[in-house]
């Protein structure tokens, strides 16, 4: 193929894709350039003695700590415990949030009964309840489950409610006039219409979920990544502390990627998620 025919194709590829105001697209690999550079600088700083090991251990010693804890099995079991807590809290809080969101979006009675109460509770920072939660549940799993569920509930509730309310009333009118029964109206019009907003809620909820879990595990726990970090602090093992922080970052990223995949799968019709 000659250059003359290749050139227009190249120009087409270089064109900014619709919906992305900043011309070029970054593929996945490019996203890792900045973190990799940062780690390299950090290692150089530690090796050259600019950063004291007690303040911030070098990446190499963090990797060594990771290796050590992996061999002993501690790392896997703590990540597993934290992950399960996070998912359990997300499932419980998210499910309750979905139920209330749909109920209050669909029924005036339900909204009148519960919405103002929920909005009042929403304004209390859920982490402020930690002392009370420790009194209620001790430092059992119940405490973590309660806090994470509470934290996850509100973003899911608020965004589900908003999603149900913002379903195009013209579509609902059309469906009714075409004789769609209530169950089908919900399944084929209201649920898919609310779904993009529910996903926004899920993303917020994931952020709150990790935040709550970290706080809960550092204050009141006997296992998990947060507990591992607090234990390490007692013995000035800063490498393990940094490792814990990195693990939280990776788990957060993982949750984000999972949500993106789920969105792509559930919203194939949506112009923002349609794959080219």
């Amino acid at each position, binding site marked *: 193929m000659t250059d003359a025919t290749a050139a227009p194709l190249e120009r087409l590829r270089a064109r900014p894709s619709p919906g992305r105001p900043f011309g070029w697209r970054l593929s996945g690999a490019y996203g890792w350039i900045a973190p990799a550079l940062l780690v390299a600088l950090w290692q150089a700083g530690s090796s050259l003695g600019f950063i004291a090991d007690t303040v911030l251990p070098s990446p190499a010693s963090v990797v060594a700590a990771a290796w050590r804890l992996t061999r002993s099995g501690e790392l896997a079991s703590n990540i597993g415990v934290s992950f399960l807590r996070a998912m359990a809290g997300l499932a419980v809080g998210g499910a309750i949030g979905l139920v209330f969101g749909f109920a209050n979006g669909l029924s005036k009675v339900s909204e009148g009964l519960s919405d103002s109460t929920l909005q009042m509770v929403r304004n209390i920072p859920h982490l402020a309840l930690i002392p009370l939660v420790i009194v209620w549940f001790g430092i059992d799993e119940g405490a973590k489950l309660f806090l994470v569920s509470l934290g996850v509930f509100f973003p899911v509730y608020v965004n589900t409610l908003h999603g149900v309310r913002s379903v195009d009333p013209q579509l609902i009118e*059309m469906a009714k*006039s*075409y004789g769609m029964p209530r169950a089908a109206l919900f399944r084929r019009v209201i649920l898919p219409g609310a779904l993009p907003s529910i996903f926004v809620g899920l993303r917020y909820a994931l952020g709150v979920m990790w935040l709550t879990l970290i706080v809960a595990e550092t204050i009141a726990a006997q296992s998990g990544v947060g507990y591992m970090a607090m234990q390490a602090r007692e013995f000035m093992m800063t490498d393990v502390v940094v490792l814990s922080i990195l693990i939280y970052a990776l788990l957060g990223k993982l949750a984000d990627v999972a949500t993106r995949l789920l969105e792509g799968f559930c919203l194939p*019709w*949506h112009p923002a998620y349609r794959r080219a």
Partner: protein
Amino acid sequence: MNATALAASRSGGSPSAAGAEVEARAIRRTFGDTTVLRGLDFRAPAGAFVAVVGRSGCGKSTLLRLIAGLDAPDGGSVTIAGRPLADASDQARVMFQEPRLLPWASVLANVEVGLGAERDAPGRRERALAALASVGLADRAADWPATLSGGQRQRVALARALVSRPRVLALDEPLGALDALTRIEMQRLLESAWLRDGFTAVLVTHDVAEAVALADRIVLIERGAIALDVGVPLARPRHRGAAEFGRLEEAILARLLGDPAPEP
């Protein structure tokens, strides 16, 4: 549209049901302090094509919404084939100003919505496909509505409205947002569907030429009452260039604009 598509849609559907008479008697509708319709009588004989024209805000869309059962009158009654609207709502279909397609359903699934109570009946896919073919979009069955042009979306909406073989089709300025060429194309499609299926059509439009091109009768509404009701004695297919076409359009426009002109 071609002959095969026509034949396909005819054999795919249930036996063609003839049009049903639509009658509105002494209907009143008020919104707050404004009375939009004041005891209006309207009748569309079975199988007729009636156009309702008027200035914006005259109550023509309100009349259509009452006929289609999207809204309830404050007084008076609406009947379809002599039965109250509540019992006959599955016999009437609406085509809206906007296509109102479900963005998350394929073009074919959107047409299946039009089957109403028969949406789970066997052969629904074939019927929907036949209806799509009759508007010339069979090859887009699997696509998302977002990938269609405005005219194509309105054609899908027409297929959805007709797939259940309704006896009455209420059209609320469905072509208003289309460009001039697409609009004429859609008018031809609509006319051929009406000639083929024999449903009663009630078309609300602000385009007098459209009304003259399609309707048997034109009803002009002014301030919530019928101000003019004229037959359109033109043979089909109609030609916009014809002298009689122009004269009739001119006369109705003059009446609409309040010019002193002889009534037709």
